[in-house]
């Protein structure tokens, strides 16, 4: 039996060889969209699809604004579906692209777009944005007006350009960032000031430890974000999207700050999700056992930072304060920008009208102040337009609010205030590996066993080398 199987396998291999030599590939080499001379046709019915990860509550908001949109463009029929969570959407769209069945519009992170772009499936938006072609039956133009462009928070808008070739790939929808949550009662009681730089942070940690020796002064949920943010703040180099992707993080400056963090970790100044064994936000809201008085986490996850609601009347065990994350250098303030953008996808069967319709819808979602405001209020993410803060409903929401809403509003406010400081890490095929690897390397360096200083250096060197090897493999 085994001989026969081997014979069959060998013959299969040969057949494959022939197939491989004669194999052909679909070829659509250019993905820069050229706006057709005839422009958008408002009389022709266009079907477009939109894949996202919105929960039920956000889908309600979306449906309302699809109805609004259809008042303007009744001929554009939009079907939307949720692909589950963030972990699922890119795998699904990858497969759909392979089958030529991709949605017209998709929720995306830069890493995802980099992957879709290998298949040249992402429509670049530059020509669409620049077009001043009038849309029949409306007073609108196809592209963005100067006023619209100026209304975008610049760093969000520039995220679409993070792909190393200067072209615009995505439009920002709603964003989140990292903020520092702290126990306001504890800080007031002990006369502590909220740290604004890392140096102050470590001083504060020392003070807190003196007050409560059993605590972790600081919890940081995402190790990878921490590493990347520090690289950006110190300008020591992380990755670059040039030349199809370069890994720059294996350098002495980064090793130095990792070593410093290790010392602080060994002193018990902080913990992270993986090191602690659970979300540090859980530690933060805890009031009985081991505590953690500061916690750096996503502004979109404010609900997890709520102190335990022990009483029925809605009062909390302690007041949660929110502040921007510490900086390394006041001259070079950097904070990571996350949250969904929108990209337009194309395949062999995508028509120009579909792309135009998709663009009109993307433009609508990203530039409509009411939608941006409502979406932000429902999700806790930050609007991408400056003028949203002037929206009356939104301003009211930001100003009042209590409990959870208050916290969300606070987060959003900090996000809006820090809008000039945003960065996004470069996106290319391999950027998600780099992110995983730096997270793992930081953990290894913080907690690995090492007897003396030389051993620590050796540990750090190996960890960096291993990470870079995995990235470049």
């Amino acid at each position, binding site marked *: *039996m*085994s001989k*026969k*199987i081997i014979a*069959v396998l060998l013959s299969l291999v040969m057949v494959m060889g022939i197939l491989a030599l004669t194999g052909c590939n679909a070829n659509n080499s250019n993905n820069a969209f050229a706006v057709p001379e005839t422009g958008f046709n408002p009389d022709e019915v266009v079907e477009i699809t939109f894949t996202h*990860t*919105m*929960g*039920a*509550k*956000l889908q309600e908001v979306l449906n309302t604004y699809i109805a609004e949109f259809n008042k303007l463009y009744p001929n554009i029929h939009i079907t939307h*579906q*949720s*692909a*589950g*969570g*963030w972990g*699922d959407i890119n*795998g*699904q769209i990858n*497969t*759909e692209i*392979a*089958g*030529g*069945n991709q949605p017209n519009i998709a929720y995306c992170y830069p890493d995802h777009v980099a992957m879709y772009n290998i298949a040249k499936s992402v429509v670049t938006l530059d020509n669409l944005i620049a077009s001043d072609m009038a849309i029949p039956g409306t007073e609108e133009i196809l592209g963005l007006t100067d006023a619209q462009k100026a209304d975008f928070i610049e760093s969000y808008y520039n995220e679409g350009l993070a792909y190393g070739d200067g072209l615009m790939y995505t439009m920002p929808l709603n964003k*989140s960032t990292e903020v520092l949550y702290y126990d306001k009662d504890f800080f007031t009681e002990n006369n502590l000031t909220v740290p604004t730089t890392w140096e102050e942070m470590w001083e504060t940690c020392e003070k807190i430890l003196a007050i409560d020796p059993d605590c972790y002064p600081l919890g940081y949920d995402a190790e990878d974000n921490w590493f990347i943010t520090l690289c950006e703040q110190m300008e020591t180099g992380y990755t670059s999207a040039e030349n199809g992707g370069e890994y720059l993080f294996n350098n002495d400056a980064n090793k130095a700050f990792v070593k410093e963090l290790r010392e602080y970790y060994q002193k018990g100044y902080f913990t992270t999700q993986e090191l*602690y*064994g*659970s*979300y540090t936000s*859980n*530690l933060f*809201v*805890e009031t009985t*056992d081991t505590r953690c008085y500061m916690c750096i986490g*996503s502004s*979109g*996850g404010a*609900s*997890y930072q*709520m102190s*335990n*609601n022990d009483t029925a009347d809605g009062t909390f065990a302690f007041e949660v304060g929110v502040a921007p994350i510490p900086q390394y250098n006041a001259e070079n303030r950097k904070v990571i920008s996350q949250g969904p953008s929108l990209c337009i996808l194309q395949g062999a069967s995508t028509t120009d009208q579909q792309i135009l319709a998709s663009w009109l819808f993307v433009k609508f979602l990203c530039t409509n102040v009411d939608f941006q405001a409502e979406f932000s209020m*429902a*999700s*806790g*993410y930050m609007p991408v337009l400056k003028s949203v803060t002037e929206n009356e409903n939104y301003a009211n929401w930001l100003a009042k609010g209590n409990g959870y809403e208050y916290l969300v509003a606070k987060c959003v406010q900090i996000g809006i205030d820090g809008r000039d400081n945003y960065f996004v890490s470069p996106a290319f095929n391999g950027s998600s590996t780099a992110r995983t690897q730096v997270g793992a390397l930081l953990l290894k360096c913080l907690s690995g066993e090492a007897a003396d200083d030389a051993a620590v250096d050796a540990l750090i060197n190996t960890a960096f080398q291993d990470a870079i090897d995995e990235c470049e493999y």
Partner: protein
Amino acid sequence: MSKNNANAVMQERDIHKITAGQLITRILSKSFTYIFLLIMALIVLFPFYWMIISSLKTLAEYRQAIPTFWPRQLMFVNYVDAFTTANLGDLFLNTLYVGLVSTLLSLVITVLSAFAFARLEFKGKETLFGMLLATMMIPGELFTITNYITVNRLGWMHTFTALIVPFLVSVFYIYLLRQNFMQIPNELYLAAKVDGTSDIKYLWKVMIPLSLPTLISITILKMMGAWNSYIWPKLVANDDAHQMITNGLRNAFTDTSGQANYPVQMAAVAIVSAPLFLVFLCLRKYIMSGVSRSGIKG
């Protein structure tokens, strides 16, 4: 031979006079069996218990660093949420339809193939069977993209066909049933041939009743498969008319940032598992010695 006989005679004598010592051994061995089974049962039961208590927790408690073994506050409202948020009725019917149709068709295909492999002689049988086994060894994830393209070309996107047909054949089940069929003495088949009984009739009258426990095991596994399938249905038929339970649940109970609201999701899983559990309770009777064994005499 003679030694065996002597042994048997001796033991037969022993049977008639059970000494106190033997009684104790018997009781001990019985209690040992029970203790063993009870401990294993507890271990096996633990996840089920966990699922139930998780479904009754608040999201905050669920996410706690130190898991609680009993919810502080029983959130029966999770069940209400689960019932109202997702369109459970439709999801349930879709899944039931896919589960039943694919189980039935799959059973027919499996029985026919297993019969051919167990009873019929044909050229290349061993090689073919070996190759079937070999196909089980490649990680199925590599097939996903190719199968997606195939289904797309066949025009099956967003149909129940796409959910049912690609997974009708399971080499695992063919293999399992073949093993079972091969245990049934060949003499029965040859006798049936002499009597002029057709293959199908023989299958239906003898083979199927005798391997009912295995067939029911396959049914359970197949139904469970339909209940738990997630990635493939999401790719080929995630529209409202065809959505399956797991997909519907995952989509319905994500919070604003796209993270799952596990307690409500667990509640929903518990709700949809209940009917399945009842079906199993009924089938259990058949798996457990409800089978007539009259045909095997001789």
